[in-house]
């Protein structure tokens, strides 16, 4: 096995052992922290230990019983859903407009829609905080959704643009030659076929909003804190084991979403649908 070739230049697996080892360590580095938190969240004692000396779901109970934690969760979920509902159509239409534009207007639009990714989040957070103070949107779900949406839109634009690139625009042309207006052709022919890209973009929007911390630090305080905001506050003050439980739940959400995203990717590429 070790003497079998592993590369185009006929390097064997044996020659590459050091590489496998190194990458194994890097993978460990990447995965270990998240994986270790999971069993630690079931620790029976007041301290986090690995491996836990006793097992208990007490920290989950604390989380579910706590009014504040529940309220924060609801706010986070509300914001994430609303962000997805806002950013996905906007991003999809934007990506479509950029894709069909023949002029330099399209490139300009693309740059503008990517700008939120290029500006450091701390700046967006501070700027938005200042703006919201003037219009009274601080500590409101609306304000949070608006800010999260501009973070999410670039992701939606990128995924939908990729989907449009591998879509045969001739089909839209055919549909129009057969009598469909531009809008009708888009809705009946193009959109059904890029739906996996659109859904992937929606997933990105959701997770971007759910995980977002920096903007929430400024714009979602006290009673209107999001889950991540509240976690951040607790992190700085004390290493509360409840956070381990919440982290595990969030990791589970990430795993589920990642699996859905992978499945969408396969369905999208496989059937050409």
């Amino acid at each position, binding site marked *: 096995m070790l003497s079998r070739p592993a590369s185009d230049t006929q390097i064997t697996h044996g020659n590459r052992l050091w590489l496998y080892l190194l990458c194994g360590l890097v993978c460990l580095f990447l995965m270990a922290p998240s994986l270790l938190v999971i069993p630690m969240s079931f620790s029976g004692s007041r301290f986090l230990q690995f491996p836990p000396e006793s097992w208990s779901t007490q920290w989950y109970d604390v989380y579910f019983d706590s009014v504040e934690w529940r309220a924060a969760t609801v706010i986070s979920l509300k914001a994430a859903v609303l962000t997805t509902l806002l950013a996905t159509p906007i991003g999809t239409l934007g990506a479509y407009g950029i894709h069909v534009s023949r002029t330099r207007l399209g490139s300009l639009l693309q740059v503008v829609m990517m700008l939120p990714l290029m500006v450091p989040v701390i700046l967006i957070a501070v700027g938005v905080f200042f703006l919201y103070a003037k219009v009274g949107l601080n500590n409101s779900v609306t304000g949070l959704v608006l800010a999260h949406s501009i973070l999410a839109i670039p992701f939606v634009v990128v995924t939908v643009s990729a989907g449009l690139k591998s879509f*045969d625009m*001739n*089909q839209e*042309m*055919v*549909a*129009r*030659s*057969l*009598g*469909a*207006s*531009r809008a*009708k*052709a888009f809705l*009946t*022919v193009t959109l*059904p*076929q890029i739906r996996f890209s659109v859904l992937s973009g929606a997933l990105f929007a959701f997770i971007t909003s759910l995980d977002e911390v920096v903007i929430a630090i400024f714009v979602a305080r006290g009673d209107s804190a999001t889950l991540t905001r509240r976690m951040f506050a607790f992190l700085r003050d004390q290493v509360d084991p409840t956070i381990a439980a919440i982290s595990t739940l969030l990791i589970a959400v990430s795993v589920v979403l990642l699996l859905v995203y992978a499945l969408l990717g396969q369905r999208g590429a496989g*059937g*050409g*649908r």
Partner: protein
Amino acid sequence: MPGGLDEAAVGQARTTASLPITISGVTKSYGAFRALDDVSLEVASGEFLTLLGPSGSGKTTLLMVLAGFVRPDCGSLLFGEREIVLMPPHKRDVGMVFQNYALFPHMTVAGNVAYPLKLRRLARGEIEERVRRALDLVQLGALGERRIDQLSGGQKQRVALARAIVFEPRILLMDEPLSALDKKLREQMQIELRHLHERLGMTTVYVTHDQREALTMSDRVAVIDRGRFIQIDRPRRLYERPRSRFVADFVGESSFLPVEVAGGEARLNGRTLRTAEPPGPERRQFLVVRPEKLDLVADQDGAGLNLLEGRVKEHVYQGESFLLYVTLGNDVEIAMRQPTRREVLERVPEAGEIIRLAIHPEDTILVPEEAA
């Protein structure tokens, strides 16, 4: 092809009217590049006209202008009496078949064909009836419920065709629809498309770069290069009487021999040529030598024909015919093609032999020297 044609379908189809097309002064530029340069063309009602040209000649651009997907810089487009150049594509009521079929993979065969009828809000029963008729017409009657990815290339092409004609458009546009098919299937489909056109009678504009296809299928062929029409003629005239070096070179194989024209006479290497028509006024022209128009003659024959002498360089056997490469007097090389019939094969000249070739005056064509 097997499979019964629905007689009623054929009869019904014959009543489809068709419209003439008038293209005037259409120009389209992309920056400094002129895709279409002031083109004008009239297509008669019910005619099958092919736009023939090399890649980048503008033929597809013109088709897209007709369909409404490319907006020209200026010009007029009339379908019948109506000016449609400003009309959006979905109102133009033309059928279009794309090179890669562009079938909707998320609908069945029947769904694809029904799509234009649904857009026109026909009654369900009417839609089903028309779809059935259209699929019968292209001999795919039994495949209505199939998914697109289950079809072969030839079948996909027929579905695309059925979809383009089901709403009875009076103009049909086709953009190299057969180029994705293999040779045998392509030649078969060429004849079928021709038959379909005869039955349905709609004005058809067909785009291809394959000159053989153009000659096979068309009522007229419009040769286009670099955004301009070079020659528009019936297939036979286009082939037998090319009016420019480009057409002689692009349509069929040709060698070119320089001739001097003076005093109404054309001279090749000092010898006067007999031509079917008087030569044009240009002093320097070219004799178009088509390989199949040449004939071997013995020394004493050849009266009344134009004669060439040369040495055989090599011969290449190609199955149904063979090619003879001959070097003429001033080191110019030409090719001659002969069918591989028994009596011909018996007297194939060897390399190095000196031979005499003859062209009939009717086949002696002169074309002017092309401006750069």
